[in-house]
């Protein structure tokens, strides 16, 4: 039986076992929405802005590990989606974004709502497609899902001209897909693995440098086992928070610009860095010429282009982190002596004692770090934490007691303000039974606050904790530190919304907290309210994120706390 392109889209998504699509309709994609209307196999969540829709799909994907799906229309629909797609791309999140396009006959004529969509998304997708013939549609959708989730995951965009959505074709959804030109390597080379294991056994000062690839490959359990057995000191990137439990005795904390002193010194002084799905980002390495001068590198990554890109790598292993570690573990456990690294651990523990992560708590004002710690005590251990971007993001990454991978959902690579709230809604859709907290700032929350209505309409009660410093705080911090405190356009104190009324006007609930005592009550109340909540916490305005590696400085030159200098 022949069916329309629009129907093929819907049937293909059903075949992919899609449970929810986030989207926004418009002219070019109307036929798809018409078919959506006629089915009840999966749900559609109508966002208030296409950026919101894509971040929701992204948050859903990060929380569940499934592919997130979004529908948008042509022209402004797809351009609004761009930030969402780029955010997912830089963090390797699997999405399939389907956009409408003007009819094939109108392409290239500057038609109404025509943009070169595949031209725009080409550099921010793993791959994209312009469907020119309805006969290719089912295969392309299959390929898109396969590409999104396999190898190094990422967003895939399918642009479908309107005439293709009405054209007829036989629906045959391929069972399996085999691409001549794309064959990701999952299993590591055995000899390379053996050599890396020997290097680890021989090292005096090894460190596990755990990155987001460990989360994507589901390697947390095996990493925990290996770290526990070998007692090798470990650091996590922002994207890897929760791979080890926060109370793991061998976890030195987060590494990089706002990492702990001990974690950064571990990288600085190591003689062997074992990178598990991390990519030596500039926020991690600090000044590159001085990065890990005495270390050899074992680099495990599914994406060969990451290996050797930033640092010289003596032991490259292309493969899936989990599969490679499964091969490594028995070899490593055979004859490794964890005592060998005791001296090294002692040195690092001394660093940790000397410069622990801390803040000067106060009874007069609320410290943002206190709010994060307190939240960690009040919410269930399986709560999902999303963040926006800025100081609050770094404090969340530093101070929240993460216990499992995928617990922290944050825009790491692109640093997209406005990500946290819609991502929280998407995460909640994927994990209804969990408390979902979005730590946000008074700047970030305004970029996508319209999605409050989505939380109301679809009953997705996420809790926004606004660490309100009346500043674009992270930029303010840099201005204070590196621009002689010239606060160019970062003071937000002159106009602030009334978040309580704002929440209420869109079916949510709001709290204003200016004393410590009020916070616990507000959070508990919010958890019971089962509504989208905004807790506007007035925090110490001038608090800085510390410690800090100043931009382009070596890791060891950290700015620590004032009283520690």
């Amino acid at each position, binding site marked *: 039986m022949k069916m329309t392109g629009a129907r093929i889209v819907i049937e293909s998504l059903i075949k992919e076992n899609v449970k929810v699509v986030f989207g926004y309709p418009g002219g070019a994609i109307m036929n798809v929405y018409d078919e959506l209307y006629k089915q009840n196999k999966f749900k559609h969540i109508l966002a208030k802005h296409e950026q919101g829709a894509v971040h929701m799909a992204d948050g859903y994907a990060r929380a569940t590990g499934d592919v997130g799906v979004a529908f948008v229309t042509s022209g402004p629909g797809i351009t609004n989606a761009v930030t969402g797609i780029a955010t997912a791309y830089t963090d390797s999140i699997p999405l399939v974004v389907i956009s409408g396009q003007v009819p094939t006959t109108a392409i290239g004529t500057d038609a109404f709502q025509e943009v070169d969509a*595949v*031209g725009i998304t*080409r*550099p921010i997708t*793993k*791959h994209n497609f*312009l469907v*020119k013939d309805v006969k290719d549609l089912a295969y392309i959708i299959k390929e898109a899902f396969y*590409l999104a989730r396999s190898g190094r995951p990422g967003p895939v965009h399918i642009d479908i001209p309107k005439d293709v959505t009405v054209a007829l074709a036989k629906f045959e959804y391929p069972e399996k897909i085999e*691409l*001549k*030109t*794309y064959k990701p390597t999952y299993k590591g080379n055995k000899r390379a693995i053996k050599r890396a294991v020997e290097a680890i056994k021989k090292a005096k000062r090894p460190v596990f440098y755990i990155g987001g690839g460990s989360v994507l490959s589901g390697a947390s359990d095996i990493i925990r086992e290996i770290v526990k057995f070998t007692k090798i000191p470990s650091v996590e990137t922002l994207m890897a928070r929760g791979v080890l439990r926060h109370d793991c005795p061998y976890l030195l904390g987060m590494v990089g610009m706002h990492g702990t002193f001990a974690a950064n010194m571990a990288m600085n002084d190591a003689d062997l860095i074992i990178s598990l799905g991390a990519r030596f980002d500039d926020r991690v390495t600090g000044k590159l010429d001085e990065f890990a001068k005495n270390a050899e590198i074992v680099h495990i990554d599914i*994406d*060969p*282009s990451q290996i*050797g*890109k930033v640092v010289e790598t003596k032991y490259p292993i292309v493969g899936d982190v989990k599969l490679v570690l499964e091969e490594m573990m028995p070899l490593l456990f055979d004859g490794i002596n964890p005592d060998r690294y005791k001296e090294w651990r002692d040195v690092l523990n001394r660093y940790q004692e000397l410069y622990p992560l801390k803040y000067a708590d106060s009874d007069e004002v609320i410290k943002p770090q206190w709010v994060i710690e307190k939240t960690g005590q009040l919410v269930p251990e399986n709560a999902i934490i999303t963040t926006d971007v800025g100081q609050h993001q770094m404090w969340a990454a530093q101070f929240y007691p993460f216990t499992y991978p995928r617990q922290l959902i944050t825009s790491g690579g692109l640093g997209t303000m406005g990500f946290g709230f819609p991502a929280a809604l998407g995460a909640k859709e994927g994990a209804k039974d969990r408390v979902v907290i979005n730590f946000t700032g008074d700047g970030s929350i305004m970029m996508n606050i319209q999605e409050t209505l989505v939380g109301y309409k679809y009953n997705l009660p996420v809790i926004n904790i606004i660490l309100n410093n009346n500043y674009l705080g992270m930029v303010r911090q840099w201005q204070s530190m590196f621009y002689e405190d010239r606060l160019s356009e970062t003071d937000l104190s002159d106009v602030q919304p009334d978040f309580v009324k704002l929440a209420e006007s869109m079916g949510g609930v709001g709290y204003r907290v200016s004393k410590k005592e009020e916070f616990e009550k507000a959070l508990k109340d919010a958890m019971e309210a089962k509504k989208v909540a905004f807790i506007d916490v007035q925090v110490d305005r001038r608090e800085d994120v510390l410690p800090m590696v100043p931009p382009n400085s070596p890791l060891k030159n950290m700015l620590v706390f004032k009283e520690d200098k």
Partner: protein
Amino acid sequence: MKRVISVIVENEHGVLARVVNMFAARGYNITSLTVAPIPNSEFSRMTIMSEGDPKVFEQIVKQLYKLIPVYKVIESDDFIEKEMAMVKFPLKEVKDNLADIDAIARCYNGKISNVNDKHVVVSVVDRPDRIDNFLKAMMSKYKNSEIVRSGVSVIER
């Protein structure tokens, strides 16, 4: 350092844009580029001459492989490299030297390929560095010439 790589890609919509965009986005140079379909296959061959140190080349190759429609990237120190060049002279500049020009062109696997009442066109096919020499020789001797180079094509020995 100049290097030539040969990229076998699936013959599909937008594949040239993907390759060229990747070079542009990552700040890699393209000195020359040729593309044509490989007969009786679904592939095309792109030959790209680029400049950079070995580390840059390593990244270029990896980034090319990362593009989904890229089937194979061939790097070899043992390519046969050929490029075509055509030079057009105003007849009045060269009419007394046609024999000389033809003789030189023959040293570079070429000849005078067209003469009309206004212009003389010479074409040659040779290694890019030899083409450089040929063009230098021609330009130093004759004025007002117009030059077209095809970009390099290669095949493994």
